[in-house]
């Protein structure tokens, strides 16, 4: 995802929509590629997801409502959304910091640091899960000193947040970093010449340009963390009402042969994911348009 946002923000090619479905072009292949895209998308994504919604609607509407608003399910939304939100906020700062350091400063080992940022993306989530649990349990490298301070990480909501910070960090860094790298030095210099101090320059010149990418990174990381399962089940403790995430609840419903109930909850999370992603794409698209003017 990194290079996508990286260059999508840099480029300014989306033209305003006007007229018919498709604007005229001399290039061939629209029918073929568009057709194939829709066909493959339907086959792999839309039909399976359609099956999910159809299955959910084998329940009556009141039953669906009762299922997706049961106290334990509501508690799982709270913990999942709450932890994902806190993780995204933490990453907002940590991600900006890392992106800033990588984009602005030169120091030894920088390229290693830069490569390491993508580790959570490349590392299988189950491996991340057992590694994090090993490190953060009360007898682990970091868990033991933290436990001395009275902070328990593994098997508490903090553990969920740690896992979510881990898996969504690259998204925040990689959306902000290219924008920072591209930021024109002249703007900052002009701001300084006009008498602004460094903080004022950051606040009034750099931040407004960064804001959309910060938001995109935030939302991407948030969306990613909402769905995370593999790494969290190891570290969460899975206590009903306390540390039980929504994907785990879906699995639990499945194990009890309640397919329709499981799909109803899945449909709720799916709808929220879609809305979030649509928002991200819309913001990016608006942003591109603004820069192209």
């Amino acid at each position, binding site marked *: *995802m990194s*290079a*996508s946002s*990286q*260059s999508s923000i840099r*480029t300014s*090619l989306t*033209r305003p929509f006007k007229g018919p479905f498709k*604007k005229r072009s*001399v*290039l061939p*292949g*629209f029918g*073929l*590629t568009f057709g194939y*895209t829709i066909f493959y*998308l339907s086959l*792999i*994504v839309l*039909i*399976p997801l359609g099956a*999910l919604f159809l299955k959910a609607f084998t329940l009556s509407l009141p039953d669906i409502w009762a299922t997706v608003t049961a106290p334990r399910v509501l508690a799982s939304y709270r913990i999942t959304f709450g932890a994902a939100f806190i993780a995204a906020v933490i990453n907002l700062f940590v991600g900006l*910091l890392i992106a800033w350091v990588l984009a602005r*400063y*030169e*120091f030894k080992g920088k*390229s290693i640091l830069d*490569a*390491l*940022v993508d*580790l959570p993306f*490349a*590392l*299988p*989530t*189950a*491996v*991340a899960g*057992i590694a994090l649990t090993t490190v953060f349990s009360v007898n*682990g*490298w*970091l868990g033991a000193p933290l436990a001395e301070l009275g902070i328990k990480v593994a098997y508490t909501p903090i553990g969920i947040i740690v896992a979510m910070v*881990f898996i969504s960090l690259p998204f925040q860094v990689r959306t902000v970093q290219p924008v920072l790298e591209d930021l024109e*030095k002249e703007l900052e*210099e002009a701001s300084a010449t006009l008498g602004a101090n*460094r903080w004022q*320059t950051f606040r009034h010149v750099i931040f407004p340009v960064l804001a959309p990418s910060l938001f995109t990174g935030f939302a991407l990381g948030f969306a*990613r963390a*909402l*769905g*995370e399962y*593999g790494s969290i089940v190891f570290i969460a403790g899975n206590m009903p009402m306390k540390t039980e995430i*929504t*994907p785990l609840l879906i699995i639990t419903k*499945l194990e009890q042969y309640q*397919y329709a109930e499981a799909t109803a909850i*899945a449909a709720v999370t*799916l709808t929220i994911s879609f809305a*979030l992603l649509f928002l991200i*794409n819309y913001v990016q698209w608006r942003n591109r348009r603004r820069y192209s003017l």
Partner: protein
Amino acid sequence: MSPSVFSTPDSPSAAAARARAEEVANTPSGRLRQAVGEPTWVRRLLIGLALFFIALILLVPLAAVFHQAFAKGFSGYWEAISSPDTWSAVKLTLIACGIAVPFNVVFGVAAAWCIAKFDFKGKNFLITLIDLPFSISPVISGLVFVLLFGAQGWFGEFFIDHGIRILFAVPAIVLATIFVTFPFVARELIPVMQAQGTEEEEASITLGANGWQTFWRITLPNIKWGLLYGVVLCNARAMGEFGAVSVVSGHIRGETNTLPLHVEILYNEYDFTGAFAVASLLAFLAVITLIVKKVLERGVRSEIQEIRASKEGAV
């Protein structure tokens, strides 16, 4: 800006240097330089903090994997890596990647072509649909294939009666892998192709080349780095997928276990050294991926810069 913050020594005459710096800072150009960069101590603090977070969040877990993997020495490590079940898991993982990645490459190129080169209504909606598998919980990704191909599902009975195994066999593992890695190639190619614009292709078509020729000779050379980059990302995700594959695998030892599932199995057999050894294999592959990615990134960047430069030149 000094080339390396770490290499700036802290001399006893630091105070003198600071005084000199303040003097310089009071000249107009010095003030400017200071205003655009941060004071050294801020820079050091920020770099230190960044290093601290990366070490804490990323490096320590990675180190833990390797530490545990070699807890019983190299022979214990080798024993776990060379067991037949591990190898059959490696093979299955390679098969799943080998099928999923090419499928998604063909799709990615087609989707990027129609999205980047043409304007049509509902483009944002289409892009969002392509993105969707990225944020869907892996559990749901696996579940949808159970709904379709499970014995209680819509097509399950049909396939089982005809002796075709989809769920709890390789086809479902491949399908789930394709699903979770669906957006990666397309999402890498779309911005690269958008940056490239349509002028070169239009010229080629006007000069009488057909669509395929134009694609092979003009478009493909321009996007090759972006494409490779997408393939690497897609492959990394395909190798590491756990949740979705776990739902559709059936966990038949030596037959439907991929590497991440094998890690879990070993872990559940109290073979912690073995579990971490196989995990380290995956972590090692992840590190290789990062290196390849780093190299490709340079390619992608120069690709975009070249495009830009040629555009500016043209204007």
